[in-house]
């Protein structure tokens, strides 16, 4: 016993000492100043890089390289800032609390609430299934649960941060509004269709109220900041290869694809079928918002219509084959097919409306 105690003491000493709250606040202030400075110098930085490489504006390679060295730091800066902020926000929400808020809510109000909570509740696609069952078992209606499951991955902080950075707040706000719209309407329709019988048997057998309550965790501000830091490490650590890949493809499109090449295929005056094709192409593609947005930016630069491109992006993020394979563990094929059909129709509607309004 004595020996064990000694061991514990030495190992505690060996671990790095966590920062204090005041150190966090000071660090965040310095970080914010550096962040703003770096963000204001993005163009100069990219100009300096192509200057050093002996390239110039106006030729293919120069434009592509400039795009890459302008976008990469910009996207990483935006992402780090927003992801940290959201990591702190998410400490105020937990799946358990969201479930408690949604349990017993009427269809309609419940769908709106579920879609909105989907933005701020911490969500990882790997725990989509436990969450799904946890919601159902606590008496959250199937349609309301779907509103949450559609909104959570689609309307997320990474997508919003990148859209805001690249296209301004109007496009980000439109994406937010329309994403919520698709999630709410799709959930309402799935709820109306009464598809509970297409849940797998073992899911139906889990009865309401069986889940034991866990004591709610209380957070100090120090813990909230630490959670923000962990969130940055986790998310930015995971998505940066997608971002680099996306920016590289975007840079190639930007530098080498002729101006207005996309206008005839994905532009405003493209035939009606270009939108469904864009959505269908998005389904087998599996990447996250971070990877697809640089491509989106480059496509728009070449004359693609915003509605078509946003629909493509929503489809890539919200409808993915790997996700359907996971969902198959709890849902039967007819319910999965309905889910895909309803969400795809919602996305199409958004695309057509966007294209005709703008």
């Amino acid at each position, binding site marked *: 016993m004595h020996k064990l105690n000694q*061991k514990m003491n030495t190992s505690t000493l060996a671990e790095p000492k966590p920062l204090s709250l005041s150190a966090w606040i000071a660090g965040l202030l310095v970080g914010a100043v550096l962040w703003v400075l770096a963000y204001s110098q993005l163009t100069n930085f990219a100009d300096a890089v192509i200057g050093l490489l002996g390239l110039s504006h106006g030729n293919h390679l120069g434009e592509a390289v400039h795009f890459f060295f302008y976008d990469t730091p910009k996207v990483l800066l935006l992402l780090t800032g927003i992801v940290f902020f959201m990591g702190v926000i998410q400490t105020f929400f937990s*799946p358990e609390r969201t479930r408690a808020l949604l349990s017993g809510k009427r269809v309609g109000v419940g769908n709106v609430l579920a879609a909105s909570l989907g933005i701020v509740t911490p969500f990882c696609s*790997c*725990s989509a*299934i*436990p969450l799904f*069952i946890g919601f159902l078992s606590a008496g959250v209606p199937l349609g309301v649960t779907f509103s949450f499951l559609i909104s959570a991955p689609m309307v997320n902080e990474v997508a919003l941060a990148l859209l805001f950075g690249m296209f301004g707040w109007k496009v980000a706000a439109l994406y937010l509004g329309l994403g919520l719209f698709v999630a709410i309407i799709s959930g309402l329709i799935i709820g109306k269709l009464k598809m509970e019988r297409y849940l797998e048997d073992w899911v139906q057998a889990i009865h309401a109220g069986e889940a*034991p309550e*866990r004591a709610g965790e209380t957070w100090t501000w120090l813990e909230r900041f630490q959670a923000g830091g962990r969130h940055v490490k986790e998310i930015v650590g995971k998505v940066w290869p997608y971002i680099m890949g996306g920016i590289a493809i975007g840079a190639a499109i930007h530098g080498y694809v002729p101006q207005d090449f996309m206008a005839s295929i994905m532009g405003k005056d493209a035939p009606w079928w270009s939108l469904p094709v864009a959505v269908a192409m998005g389904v087998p593609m599996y990447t996250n918002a971070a990877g697809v947005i640089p491509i989106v930016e480059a496509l728009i630069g070449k004359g693609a219509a915003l509605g078509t491109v946003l629909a493509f992006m929503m489809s890539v993020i919200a409808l993915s084959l790997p996700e359907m394979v996971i969902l198959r563990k709890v849902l039967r094929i007819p319910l999965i097919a309905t889910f895909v059909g309803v969400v795809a129709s919602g996305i199409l509607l958004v695309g057509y409306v966007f294209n005709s309004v703008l």
Partner: protein
Amino acid sequence: MKDIKVLGTGCANCRNTIKLIEEVAAARGVAITLTKVEELPEIMKYGVMSTPGVVVDGKVVHAGGIPDRSKIAGWF
């Protein structure tokens, strides 16, 4: 002997959680039996909604994300 179960469908976070628990237990010289619970119906019995979840001696002590080193140490 602590009986520890890690609930999760095999995502990266779950594997990291297991590694971390093993490390901390080894550093503290605490004997544990570590089991992975990967079957969904089994996981759902614990009422955990975000994985990885951690169960110590039959009680859920953590759900969602990789637990902190200090949090893990608190379980022993």
